[in-house]
């Protein structure tokens, strides 16, 4: 039996790493999307750790739906990125400032 706090700390480390990846982005939109996938993975691990601790399958059901939504969001995010690259010929985050006030 894996102790609950070990799995939770692992999930917290993954979350912190994904936040770091969002912030120290090397000006690349793909890194943003990958950091968001890491974030969702950390949250899923958290849910599964609690589902394992309480022997309740509802945590796993929520993970099921989070996986669905994450896959849909990744597909649409990549489609937007393709269209953006066609229009602007760049995917550097620093250069995508058309909406800047």
């Amino acid at each position: 039996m894996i102790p609950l706090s070990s799995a939770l700390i692992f999930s917290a480390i993954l979350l912190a790493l994904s936040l770091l990846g969002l912030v120290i982005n090397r000006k690349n939109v793909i890194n943003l999307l990958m950091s968001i996938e890491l974030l969702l993975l950390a949250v899923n691990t958290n849910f599964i750790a609690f589902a394992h601790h309480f022997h309740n399958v509802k945590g796993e059901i929520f993970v099921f739906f989070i996986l669905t939504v994450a896959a849909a969001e990744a597909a649409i995010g990549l489609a937007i990125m393709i269209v953006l690259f066609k229009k602007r010929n760049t995917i550097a985050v620093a250069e995508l400032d058309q909406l800047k006030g």
Partner: protein
Amino acid sequence: MTATMSNLIQQFFFYFFAVLAIASAVGVILGRNPVRAILFLVLTFFFTAALWIMLQAEFLGLILVVVYVGAVMTLFLFVVMMLDLNAIMQHKGLVKRRFLATLLVTAILAILVYFLGPWHFNQQTFPASSNMIAANYSSTQALGMMLFTHYLLPFELAGVLLLVAMIAAIALTKTAKPRRRVQDIDKQIAVKAKNRLRIVKDKELPQ
């Protein structure tokens, strides 16, 4: 095999997979090449799927590998290969103030670890219902029993969500050939005066 020995083996494998998953996640963040970063992310997913199988969620662990790695990461790789990598990798260097960002994220991590540590979440203060799992426990069966009875409506809604996402992705990236003579309102609004009108002086007119 005694209980402590199996416990020890479980702990060893947990730390093995956890440390490797965290190392792969660090490789995702620091990977300069997008393809290398995506492959590190695939590795992270594999190790995390192994962890999920250890946490008695074998269906979800396999679904992570098949659906997430097999479909979503493949999609990432396709998109990265479609774009021009020379244009992407022109922008070298990290952003400014990355040391401050690392410090703040470490502070966030420290706060999280303080609240999630084993002094809060151990067996005395946060007891589980029981320690024994049945030998023929099938996560797939338990998931299916709950998903198709109590959570049937969210399940169907998830299917509709995927359909909508598919339509959106196709509509966004579809390049329609102009088979009809229609007005392109974007081009009409974006036209500038210098594209349509040129003021000439007298000496340019042909005599």
